[in-house]
Structures are given as C-alpha cells and as structure tokens.
C-alpha cells in the first residue's frame, strides 16, 4: 500500500516537473512558431491591409493566386521550382558525395577539407553580399567581367546581377556554394559511424564496386542521417529564397528573373500591404515544404 502510494506520488511529481522543464521552450515555441503559422492560415482567408480589421473573404485569396496572379504563375512558381530542384536535390547529392569522399581520407586532411567545405555555409547572406557584388560587379572593374574579357570570351562588361538572363544561374551557384551545412556534417558523421565489419561482411558476400557498397551498405546504414540531411536541405533551399533580392538589390528582382516565392510574400506583405494575400502565399509555401519533407520521409524512413 505504501509502495503504491509512493509510486503514484513519484509519477505525479515526474509529470509536474516534466512540464516545468518544458514550459519555457513550449511557451516560446507557441508564441513564435505555432501562433504565427495559425495566424497565417487564418489571415489567408481574409482581406487585410493592416489598417482595417481583417475581413473574411473565404477562399478568394487562393483563387486569385491560382487564376489571376500572372506574376506568380509566369515567374515566381517556375523560378521557385527551378531553383528548388537544382539547389535541393542537387545540393543534397553533392553534400552526400563530398561527405563520402571525405570519409575515405585520414583524420587530419578530412577535418581540414570538412572545414573548408563547411565554412561558406556559416556566413549568412549579409557578409557574402559584399563579396558577390564585387565579384559580379557590372562594370569592367568587376572580377568576372575583367576575367572573361581578359580571356576574350566577352567583349564588353555584362551587368550580371541586373540581367534577367544571368541572375538565376548566379543565385543557384551561390546557394550551392553555401549548401554544405549541418546536413553535410551529419552525413559525414553518419558515414564514419558505420561499423566497418559491415563492409567486410559485404565484401565476403560479393559486393564488388564502391558504388554497390554505397547503395547496399552505406546509405541503408545511415538512413537517419540521410533523412536529417534531406530535411535540412529542403528547409535551407526555401530559406535561401532571399538571395535574389540580396544580390540584385531590389524587390521585385529585375524582370522577375530571380523572384522566388519568399520574395513574392515580402513583395505583397511589406511593400503592398496586402497581408491576407501574402498569408495565402505563405501557406502555399509551408505546404510545399511539408510535401517535400514527406517525400524524403518516404525515401529514407527506417523501418524499425
């Protein structure tokens, strides 16, 4: 009897203190993540110009988005898809491949190369904007222009960052350059963590080439890290959307060439004050992220 009462008290205590330990994070999580997401969903069904109280208009924002927003359909959506497909899976595959290569080296060179490859991802866009703007500067003192003119490939300076033609490729290169982030480190650690006996067993079982090894041993043994890397790649890709505006210095970007969904949200939300409509675009963006994460979950979820 005593035992039972004692046990019950302990469990209760445990619950109480569990919530106490959780409380601060939970509070911040609700305020800065849950409420904004719910508010975005609610606002997306309203007309809201920040002056008057939001007016409920049902699905009209979504209908406008799908049927009347020419900019969205003609530029923003195709741009976002192009950008996301190349930077997302492309950056992810690159990160895995480089992690795998690094794992084949002894500790010291591996650490050095990992540091070099990781370092671009730790500078936010701000410090780097200085560099990219100088390298791709539009006049003949720009490094890119001077270099290509020196080689005789171009005859006169190109306005790289203002050109609808080049802005997107530059955005992609810049983003790929900084895509070896914590997902990359996780995959590297995952590869190094695999029990070497697995490879030995596989070799005895007849796995011959390194490619076979990658697909039959390495990837299946580090699915959790692969999934973590994938989630980080997806988030990073959509988060990187501001890069076009940073590079070109204007929103909208020149002829909407680098306009991504994130810039579209800012354009409507902070420049035109059509908050309800911007919220609808936000919801679409969140759904896209969710969809792609689900997809990678399907690919890499461990079965146990």
């Amino acid at each position, binding site marked *: 009897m005593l035992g039972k009462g004692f046990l019950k008290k302990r469990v209760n205590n445990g619950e109480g203190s569990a919530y106490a330990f959780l409380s601060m994070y939970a509070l911040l999580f609700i305020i800065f993540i849950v409420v*904004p997401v719910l508010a*975005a969903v609610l606002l997306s069904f309203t007309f809201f110009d920040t002056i008057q109280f939001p007016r409920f208009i049902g699905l009209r924002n979504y209908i406008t988005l799908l049927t009347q927003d020419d900019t969205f359909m003609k530029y923003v959506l195709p741009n976002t898809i192009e950008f996301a497909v190349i930077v997302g899976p492309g950056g992810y595959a690159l990160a895995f491949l480089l992690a795998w290569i690094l794992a084949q080296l002894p500790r010291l060179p591996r650490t050095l190369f990992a540091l070099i490859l990781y370092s671009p991802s730790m500078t*936010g866009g*701000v410090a780097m904007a200085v560099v990219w703007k100088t390298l791709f500067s539009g006049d003949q003192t720009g*490094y890119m222009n001077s270099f290509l003119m020196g080689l005789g490939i171009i005859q006169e300076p190109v306005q790289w960052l203002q050109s609808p033609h080049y802005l997107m490729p530059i955005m992609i290169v810049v983003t790929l350059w900084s895509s070896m982030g914590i997902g990359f480190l996780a995959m590297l650690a995952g590869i190094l963590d695999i029990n070497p006996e697995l490879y030995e067993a596989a070799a005895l079982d007849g796995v011959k080439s390194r490619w076979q090894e990658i697909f039959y041993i390495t990837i299946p043994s580090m699915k959790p890290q692969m999934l973590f890397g994938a989630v980080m790649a997806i988030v990073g890709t959509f988060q990187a959307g501001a890069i076009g505006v940073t590079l070109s210095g204007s929103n909208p970007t020149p002829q909407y060439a680098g306009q991504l969904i994130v810039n579209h*949200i800012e354009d409507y939300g*902070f420049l035109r004050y059509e908050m309800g409509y911007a919220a609808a675009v936000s919801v679409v963006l969140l759904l896209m992220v969710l969809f792609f994460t689900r997809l990678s979950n399907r690919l890499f979820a*461990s079965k146990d």
Partner: protein
Amino acid sequence: MSKHWFRRYTGVSNRGINPRGFHVSQLKFYAILLPLAAFMMLPIVFIFSNAFKPLDELFAYPPRFFVVNPTAKNFTDLFARMSTSGIPVSRYLFNSIVIALATVAASIFVSSTAAYALSKKRFRLKQTLFAINTVALMFVPIAVNIPRFLVIEKLNLLDTFWVHVLPVLAMPVGVFLLKQFMDVIPNELIEAAQIDGASDWAIYRRIILPMVRPAIATIAILTFQAVWNSADSSTLYVTTESLRTFAFYLSTLTATATGANVVAGQGIAAAAALIMFLPNLIVFIVLQSQVMSTMSHSGLK
C-alpha cells in the same frame, strides 16, 4: 580480432572508410577535393584579401584578387565612422556581441531543459510533443514573417532588446539534437542518482548537462550563427538605431555601395565583412570535433 585478421589479409587498412593513414587509392579523392576546395575558398580568401586593400587597389583596373600593399586603413576608417544617424560602429558591434552571448546562453538553457523532459521524463503528451517538434524542424521562419511581426507587435516587443533574442530561442533543431544525445544516457544512471536523493534539477545540472557537452557546443554554434549573421530582426522589428546590430549595419553599407557612396563605402564594407565572418570561423574551429560527435546522433528515426 577478426577485423585485424581481415585487414592484414586483404591489405586494406588504409583504404575504405576512415583510414588511419595515406594510401595511393586516396589520390583520386584528393584530385577531386583540391580544386573544389580551392573554388569553395575563393570568396572567403577574397574577404580577407579585400579587407586589407588600400583604396587604389580596391578600384584597380584590371582588378587584382590578392592584396599587394596590405593596410589596416579600412578598419580604422570603419571605427572612426559614424553611421548616417550618428551612431558609432562600435555601438552596433557591442549590440551584436551582447545579443549573441545572451541568445547563445539562453538558447542552451531553454533547449536543454526541454530536451531533458522529452528524453528522460515520463508524461502523457511526450510522444506527441516530440512529434510536433520534429515537424517543426521543417519550419521556414521567413514564410510567416508577417504574422510573426503581428505577434511581436501585440506583445509590445517591437523596438526592444528582447526582440533580437526571444524568437531565436524557439529552435526545434536544438531541442531535437539534444534529445537524440540524451536518449543515449543510460536510465540507470538517473535512477541511481534519484535513489541517492538527487533532485530533478541536480540530475539535469550534474548528470545530463556534462554528458551532452558536444551537443551543447553544437547548439551554441548554430545559435551563434543564426543571431550573429542575421540582419532580419534589426530590419523588421527595430527602429531605434542604437538597438540595431552589426549585421544590419553591414547590410546598409552594401546597399549604399551600389548607389551614392561607392568609393568610401567599399573599403569599409570589406573590413566589416571580415569582422562579420571571423567569429563564425573561430567558434567553429574551436568546437568542430564536438560538432562531429553530435552529428552522429543527429538522425531522425
């Protein structure tokens, strides 16, 4: 034993994953990595080189990548300069340092307490809450900037010191990584401490925290980078110039560098970019081995 036998037998001790030393088969990997690493490093080398260039080299034609006559003038110019609103640069830097330190400390505390509850406590909503946190890993803050702004406005946080700190503390990745790490700590250890009469707080403080040090180092880096590099909170939520951060100041420099103030701005911007970048690099180099050991626990299951 069998491992040694196998390695000796096949002679592969320096081939394959995680070798101990050099082997000819590694040459092809160096052949790929060296040019790539050089390419990846270019912009960063450029930051260093540019920051020490005198004005005539910054605008030299044809432009030169490496500095020839290094000078510290850009740095002295930077610190001698007032922003357009009369705030010295040191004030922005001071704000950034204080905000970064406060946020890193608070973030470690907030994330680790939550992770402790989610990993070692038994309560009804545990699985659900962890699942919600895992979904939130894919949260893209930039998507809900507007409602976030409205929430911050309603809470009267606009134009305060706290607006730099509080939103960053809701960091699902931090809780996630710490929880994965804590899951590995044997429960027997905690039970033994409970029998010895240790309070919950003592267990958290004396047993859990020391054992997850690598994960804490990682959270510290992630938080630091998120806060130090971001100009968003200053741009969106703060209007008082003396409350804004160094990242924001740098972003104003690059904005004017394309417009009116091209000549004077460039050298200062180059110096500021280096100051912006260096702390990231130093913090990461110091803590990198800890980060790697955290990442082997980083899987989603």
